[in-house]
């Protein structure tokens, strides 16, 4: 269902490698399964031909990798950025996390990525191969005789259903056509939870967060979590904690993580994509985004380089913490 093909991307990458514009390519590499795509650095055209993939499971946001990879590579690195990735790209530039001069960014269009959990829910386990054909996915499993054909739209990832922008906010070169910022309904789920009673919300989150196994995948994939040393890994922080000893620590971890990225999170949805327990972690971030939009005016992290996040800014007329709740009750 992607409009751009693997071959086009390989051709572009090969061109740039061969003419010396870049010395490496950050792209999606073959993983163990078709849906298990691994971020990979390619240095030669041959490596690209052998290992580069582009399919409906290439959700990984490469912006974050630039923080570490730009140091390791002489010359420029080519990075492919989907529209949502470009916001993270800008946000990291705002925070001076990598050297823009060392990156050659190619914006690529995105038609939305598939959620493997949704695929599995239809096809069943034991997926051997997934093919793409127009707007259909053909899923071959070990247990079924016939491949299952699924409409790509039915298995679209949540973050793509609620895609906030098809527009690239940063690139050196754009492949395909430029899209628009989209009026999405991405805050609907947050609003639905807000409308619940505190007890219902507590039960909801208790159910969700208690599944957390503290694998740190959310943190490791998050393009806003690029700290040199995370407080949760730092024995001197006083809150070091590597495994959840009880349910409070999961909450502490996720609240603090969401707070640390508040105002910096671009709502790319990587946290929820990589969560092996399918916890809707993006809702925590969206809650912060929604609140800050409500309280302090619309703000989209990464929309431009150098913008000032709401939590490191203020006006003398800001609403009081206590008024937050009055306001909600009045709106309800």
């Amino acid at each position, binding site marked *: 269902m992607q409009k751009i093909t693997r071959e086009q991307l390989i051709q572009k990458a090969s061109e740039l490698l061969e003419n010396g514009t870049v010395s490496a390519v950050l792209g999606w590499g073959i993983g163990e399964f078709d849906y298990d795509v691994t971020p990979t650095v390619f240095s030669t055209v041959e490596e690209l031909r052998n290992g580069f993939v582009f399919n409906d499971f290439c959700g990984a946001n490469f912006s974050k990798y630039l923080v570490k990879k730009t*140091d390791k590579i002489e010359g420029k690195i080519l990075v492919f950025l989907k529209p949502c990735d470009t916001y993270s790209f800008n946000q990291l530039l*705002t*925070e*001076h*996390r990598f050297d823009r001069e060392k990156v050659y960014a190619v914006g690529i269009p995105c038609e939305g990525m598939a959620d493997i959990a949704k695929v599995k829910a239809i096809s069943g386990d034991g997926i051997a191969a997934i093919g793409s054909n127009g707007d259909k996915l053909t899923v071959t499993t070990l247990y079924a005789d016939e491949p299952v054909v699924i409409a790509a739209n039915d298995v679209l990832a949540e973050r793509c259903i609620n895609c906030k922008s098809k527009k690239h906010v940063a690139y050196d070169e754009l492949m395909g056509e430029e899209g628009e910022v989209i009026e999405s309904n991405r805050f609907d789920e947050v609003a639905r939870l807000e409308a619940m009673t505190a007890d219902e919300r507590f039960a909801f989150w208790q159910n969700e967060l208690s599944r957390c196994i503290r694998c740190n995948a959310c943190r490791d994939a998050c393009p806003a979590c*690029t*700290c*040199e*040393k*995370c*407080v949760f890994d*730092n024995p*001197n*922080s*006083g*809150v070091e904690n590597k495994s959840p000893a009880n349910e409070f620590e999961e909450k502490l971890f996720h609240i603090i993580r969401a707070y*640390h*990225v508040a105002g910096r999170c671009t709502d790319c949805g990587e946290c929820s994509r990589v969560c092996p327990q399918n916890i809707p972690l993006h809702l925590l971030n969206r809650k912060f985004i929604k609140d800050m939009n409500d309280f302090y005016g619309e703000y989209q992290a990464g929309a431009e380089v150098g913008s*000032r*996040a709401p*939590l*490191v*800014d203020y006006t*003398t007329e800001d609403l009081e913490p206590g008024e937050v709740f009055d306001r909600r009750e009045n709106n309800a």
Partner: protein
Amino acid sequence: MQRVGVFVCWCGSNIAGTVDVEAVSEALKSEPGVVFSTNYQYMCSQAGQDMIKQAVKEHNLTGIVVCSCSPRMHEATFRKTAAAAGLNPYMVEIANIREQCSWVHKDMLTGTEKAIILGKAAIAKVNLNAPLIPGESPVTKRALVIGGGIAGIQTALDIADAGFPVDIVEKKPTIGGKMAQLDKTFPTLDCAACILTPKMVDVAQNEKIRIFSYSEVTEVSGFVGNFEVTIKKNARYVKEDICTGCGACVEKCPMKRIPNEFNLGMDNRPAIYIPFAQAVPKVATIDPNACNMLKNGKCGVCSKVCAAGAIDYTQKDEYINEKYGAIVVATGFNPISMDKFDEFAYNQSKDVITSLEFERLTNAAGPSAGKLLRPSDGKHPHTIVFVQCVGSRCESCAEKGKEYCSKICCMYTAKHAMLTRDKYPDTEVYVFYIDVRTPGKNFDEFYRRAVEEYGVKYIKGMVGKVVPEGDKLKVQASDLIANKQLHIDADLVVLAAAIEPDKSARPLATMLTASMDTNDFFTEAHPKLRPVESPTAGVFLSGACQGPKDIPETVSQAGAAASKVIGLLAKDKLTGNPCVANSNELMCNGCSSCANVCPYGAITYEDKEFRMPDRTTKIRRVASVNPAVCQGCGACTVACPSGAMDLKGFANLQIMAEVDAICK
């Protein structure tokens, strides 16, 4: 782990009355790190302090916890005690068991329980204390005064008098400011020029003072004691050191119809000009927007008539970099624009003027050579209406007026009214007022004299509208005491326009990281106790840039600011507050969150090379805190996601240890 000594104070019966001090010192004995615990009647007394010193020696204490009154009371006392005993003064923590325990809880049991918990929290904290040594930084012994009005002049003279070099930066071609435009000064009615110009000459002749006129500050960096400032000297197209101020060029310049700013546009000046006779420096300046030579390369008359050869049409703006230990802001004020006050017909009639224009009209060096004549027809006005509070105390009209009282208008209006009646007894003078505010030495007497001796008609009420009709101004006003609406045919209407800070103040405040209020007046560090200091260390405030002020008040504030500057420059080294933020470079991401919330601009970034675990090196952008600028609020510590930024004396681990101790 520290070796902690705990000292529980009875404070007579203040603490011991509701807290079982014996039980507290006993309970705290078994806390981690505690090697000694005792209680005493008055810990702050000499005997109590000696007890602490003794215990430090005997038990080799490395940390002290005093359970006593508020640290706001005696923290400094016990820190000195610790220092006297050879400990670092910051190894002392106070548990506030008086104000926040014995005095607010009635019951011995709860009081004692809480005192023990507060003691535990203090012990938990002191165990994590580290000796702190205040940072030191050198002081550049030179001051910068921004603004060359009476505030700046007085400040500069006082600083120079103490022996320190001072630079004055003035954006106009001459120093003197608003006071140079005034005629007489209240309440003694001496002429402004007679008392100001000698001071201007003093400034010019003082070897310690340099004047950068026709100049502005474009860049400020650094911090208290160590500011680096870039001053832009605008090209005046006249060599300052050669020009003798003879005025031949001014006389011969053919472009004579340029509105004269000094007389508020009520007459004209040539393209090359000296603002007024006593200008300092007395040097001509070419107005580049008016000079034909500069615009089209045609003319050159001034160059021909200049015997000294001072004219230089090729002069360029010059940038000067200088270091200063202290900066004084003296940017002053301006009357607000009257354009939006349609009801007073300011833009419709030349005979509706502002009070500052009135000053020029009555000034012997003014456009009418001191004769009070109507600007429209040059006739002598017989009926003059003064309107007070025009744009002052104006809450509903933020787009045209100011909410505050401009403070000086009552007095200068009384002065104008009195002088008019004195010089022209045939004139009817009305003053419409809302309130007459004349606090100040001899001020109310002055106002009463205007009424009682000079027969000025003070009418409680406001003017509603002024309509020009023929050669008269129809004034419609309230007389609230008589409960009448008055209709006066006036010849001249004088508006006491509100004053506002100079427009240059806001960008300057940004450069200095000095704070301002919503009206663009500079904020003082404390409204009562530190009125001439800005919250930004090393930046001081003088005159009306801080709030509306008359001359006596401005001069006294200027002197106060100077004495603060002298106090600062007299030091060879500055000792800072050691409880400042510090960044752990190994953990810093260089993301700028901390710098975004720092109110003092204390955080800067540098690219540093780091050895990585894999033996490669990496250059990373990391924050560094200037301890001389940081005031220790801690805003940065919370903005920092990685926890690289911490606050000495109130470290993350220390506060969490307190939380843990309280919640245990």
